[in-house]
């Protein structure tokens, strides 16, 4: 295992990787838009990594019952 993280990929590469992995068809204009707002997506997801939630349980409930 490498002891260093790979260099951050640019937004266009990140977007193309996600589109290739998911097989989601987009128009050229939509790809450009996704590249444009990709930093915003990273900003939103980073904002959720709060120290206060480090050991928090998620709000996910699965009742083990046959009727629910």
């Amino acid at each position: 295992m490498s002891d260093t993280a790979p260099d951050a990929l640019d937004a266009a590469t990140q977007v193309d990787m996600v589109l290739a992995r998911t097989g989601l068809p987009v128009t050229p204009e939509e790809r450009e838009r996704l590249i444009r707002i990709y930093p915003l997506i990273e900003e939103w997801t980073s904002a959720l990594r709060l120290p206060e939630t480090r050991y928090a349980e998620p709000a996910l409930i699965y009742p083990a019952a046959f009727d629910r």
Partner: protein
Amino acid sequence: MPELPLTIAEAAEWLRSGRITSVGLTEAQLARAHATQDTLAAFIHIMDDVALAGARQADADFAAGVDRGPLQGIPIGVKDIIATKDAPTTANSRVLDPAWGDRDDATVVKKLRAAGAVIIGKLGLAEYALGWPDPDTGFRIPKNPWDLTRSPSGSSSGTGAAVGGGVILGGLGTCTGGSIRGPAAFCGISGMKQTFGRVSKEGCVPLGYSLDHIGPMARSARDCAIMLQVLAGYDPLDLCSVDLPVPDMTGLMTGSFEGVRIGVPRDFFFTAPNLDPGVKAAVEAALDAMVAAGATVVDVSIPHAEAAGHAQRITMVSEAYAYHEPDLKAKPELYGKYTRRSFQLGAFYTAADYVQAQRLRPLVRQECAAAFGDTATGGVDVLVTPTMPMTAPTFEGYDPDGMLRSAGFTSIWNLTGLPAMSIPCGFSSGGMPIGMQLVGRPFDEPTVFKIGDAYQQITDWHLTVPPIAKEAQPA
């Protein structure tokens, strides 16, 4: 020109006093609906025959001494993302398989009919309850009744336009991040998103499974309470439904602010950079009016309110993407371009992002509990915030992506599930309505209604109607 009632409560009195019949009221509202389809464009499907049959039944019941409650004989519109057995359901999309709608009524529609309500039609919306309208889809685009060049907000755009424009007295909206309260604020009406689980969402096309609500939109808080009384209740067909007794939704209404304690989360909700000064001033004036009437205002804090908005967005789009992924791949061209763009973002969130958003929910819930405090030791009854940071924008020149960086004040209450209602509290200098949001403790809708109704006893913003509501009167 026949005089028509302005509220459900008023119409209920008129029906019982013989001043109007359900058939007369329904005929007048159908005429308004048709007359405004080229302007307000509120409906996708107007159900003339079904509505008139329902109205005749309501009148026959009155004549026979059968009274099913205050909705009997009242025409009600249904957002066209909720199933009705006698009309198609489109979700305002060319993508939804028409066969989806070949089914019985949604639970909420069954409840409305059982209460004697007259289902008058299916109301327009943002496609699949998300995104900005795309004229290329061929669906009508509902307009703001105060200015037809402006948005009524979304996603319950048709319900907001129809109630605000005086076409109907009440309607159903749905809400995943603000889709009841936004149109209520922009169209100058009242709209309640009750506690998550209080009303069944069975029979509604999903957007975000853990955030979706179906709720009432009407002119007054009292009308919303009347509707919620009928809509609420446990439903085993909805996994999220909560098995709790339904309280008397109007039972706490006294018209008084004596002893009422209001929490005001100033940080974020009153300091966001995109908050219009006119909106802020109107909500501050409403707080002053409530204090003058006997309420006490206390500053409170919800430290992670902004992050809650991010968590709601990631949850909503991830859940929506799971539902829409097959259609986004198989027939993307059938979506409106703005809806497709909104859903595409779901491909970019990881499973860890989604779970992290769910880990934020208990944290924000704890912060809300702290903000409300203990009522026995000086806690507050409701929180008050602006509903929307601005008034209705024009369609022309609007950039939906511009909103991605803007703070919103409604979605946190979908994330936490707390009841939240928007009521009118003034107008901008340009004459557009402004909404104030009242947020309650879990399952304490009666207190929210009590305070909303008390405010509407000392103001008449909710009874101020736009000119189009008068123009739409049948000759």
